């Protein structure tokens, strides 16, 4: 294997941006504070390619769409995901649809970055996992890594991709460290999930911060003699159905874990996948352990409650091993389960 360097997710993102800007002169970085935050990139690539923008998400995203269709590869930082609501027309109606409606006349090689998730006690107008909205919208790709290596490799892939990619960063991961390959040509293909831990008894699927939650749950399950397979989706769209189905067909048990609301979320999609394409292999009900269908509170005490905990994942998995029905709502931690949150 090639050499690696230990770094944080935040450093991995910076490296990916730098490498791709070096590699391709059409790559452009824009956002509210992008130039302030990336002084070094301004220095190396000039103010034309690294821009602070006016505080106006709609025109930032729209400009990215127009530029992408005209020979540039813009990366726009939209800061916190809920601010993307201002950019929704540009992303959903323009970037996602105009290639199709024009009969393939245009390509939109752009990346729109956003922060999601709990950890900073900033409340629902900053903390909202709305990635599934973009999965539901046509013509877009959605990426949401969990390790520094994947952040680097997938951001590089997203910048090189000829389609619009939504790149979400779970802010709780920003300063998490990991080994990242040094090779310039290190790229992680969009659309491939990773088996973060192999196991034959139950499949735990997560993405972003819940991959760690599932891995901890797998440790706890191992202590009970249960071998859990943990899948890190990495890309939400296109979804790596094969990897998920292969695992579910092997284990017959599926627990999907994410922080976003489960209602029409990825957990719904994966449960549907199992129920439609791996039904005959399923030995127990699918379990969704997700954030509640509610805005996220700021209060630290309440914010803590919305992220699924390893204990709850392990408990749910054990329930499936015992082939008990999914337990009824009402227990202390149940408000974290969509079954109860709806």
């Amino acid at each position, binding site marked *: 294997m090639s050499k690696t360097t230990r770094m944080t997710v935040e450093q991995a993102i910076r490296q990916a941006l730098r490498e791709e800007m070096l590699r391709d002169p059409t790559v452009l970085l824009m956002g509210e504070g992008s130039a302030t935050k990336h002084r070094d990139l301004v220095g190396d690539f000039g103010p034309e390619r690294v821009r602070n923008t006016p505080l106006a998400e709609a025109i930032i995203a*729209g400009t990215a769409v127009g530029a992408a*269709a005209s020979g540039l590869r813009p990366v726009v930082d939209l800061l916190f995901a809920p601010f993307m609501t201002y950019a929704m027309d540009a992303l959903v109606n*323009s970037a996602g649809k105009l290639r199709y*409606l024009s009969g393939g006349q245009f390509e939109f090689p752009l990346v729109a970055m956003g922060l999601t998730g709990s950890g900073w006690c900033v409340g629902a107008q900053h903390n909202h996992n709305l990635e599934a909205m973009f999965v539901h919208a046509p013509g877009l790709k959605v990426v949401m890594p969990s390790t520094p290596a994947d952040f680097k490799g997938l951001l590089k892939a997203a910048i090189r991709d000829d389609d619009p990619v939504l790149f979400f960063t779970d802010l709780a991961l920003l300063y998490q460290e990991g080994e990242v390959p040094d090779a310039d040509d290190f790229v992680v293909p969009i659309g491939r999930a990773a088996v973060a831990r192999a196991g034959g008894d139950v499949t735990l699927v997560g993405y972003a911060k819940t991959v760690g939650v599932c891995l901890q749950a797998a440790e706890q399950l191992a202590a009970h003699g249960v071998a859990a397979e943990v899948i890190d989706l990495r890309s939400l769209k296109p979804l790596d159905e094969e990897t998920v189905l292969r695992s579910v067909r092997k284990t017959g048990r599926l627990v999907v874990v994410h922080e976003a609301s489960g209602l029409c979320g990825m957990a719904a999609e994966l449960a549907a996948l199992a129920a439609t394409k791996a039904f005959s292999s399923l030995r127990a009900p699918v379990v969704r352990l997700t954030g509640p269908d509610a805005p996220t509170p700021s209060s630290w005490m309440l914010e803590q409650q919305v992220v699924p905990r390893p204990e709850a994942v392990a408990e749910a998995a054990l329930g499936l091993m015992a082939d008990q029905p999914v337990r009824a709502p009402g227990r202390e931690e149940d408000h974290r389960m969509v079954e109860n949150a709806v």
Partner: protein
Amino acid sequence: MQSTPRSPLARLETMLLIRAYEQQLVALQQNGAPGTCTSVGQEACAVGVVDALDARDRILTNHRSAGHLIARGAAPERLMAEVLGRVDGYCGGRSGSLHISARELGVVLTSTIVGGELSMAPGVALAHKMGRGAPGGIVAVFFGDGAACEGIFHEALNLAVHWALPLLFVCENNQWQAFVHRLETMADPAIGEWARGHGLPVRSVDGNDAEAVHAAATEAVAHIRATGSPYFLELRTYRQRGHYEPDDQAYVDKAELQAWLQRDPIRVQGERLIGAGAIDAPGVAALERQAQERVEAALAFAQASPWPAAETLLDHVYA
């Protein structure tokens, strides 16, 4: 693409073609084809501005695009095929009438989302500024008085001015925003004042006078090429027909409509040219017949064009 520079007579000819084409669409709709948003009465805006552009330049337009496309040299055959949803349309039938782009003509990223053109135009202009387009090329974005009410109008102006983008804003103020009169949505005057607040050159001209529009647009384009910075044109005109076909216009003030019909842009241009001896009435009639014949040929072509195959439904979703 249209050959430039073109003469006032050529502009009359083009306006007649646009008119004949859209009248044909009206008839088609009455026979069950999809409705369209016609630009009848606004032809002078289209030819006046588009004739001031050249091959280096790019155009963004919206749901009311027939004039801009034909002035740019689009083939009525392929436009009509697109409206009918056939494979020979500029977008293979996927667009229909509402978002026709013709990249080969430099008409790009047409959006039927009001304001969509304004959200993307600065990006196209930025690419030109950063050397991705033809050297010296500029971008013209056509939008309506209604689009000026959308927040994106403000955001686009601020970005274009602050980033000094080679962008020509062309507001076709046709007094109507679907079924709502402009005066029900904004002060009077408003649009020019809003633009002036952004500190770019703003000019408001008679949108029913093709030569006045052309002169203003020529000056605007020269300014943009010289300075690299944006310019704002407001063209005062009128939507003679309904918002789309069919539309009984029951909500339209008949007197206002009549007053504007008196100043129909084709009539204005025709009388000007006849007055100048450049053509006579029979000559104009001949041009009208010519346009009509062209459009009938286009219709035959479009109707003969095949439907897209069902298996192609998922083509072009991704690169």
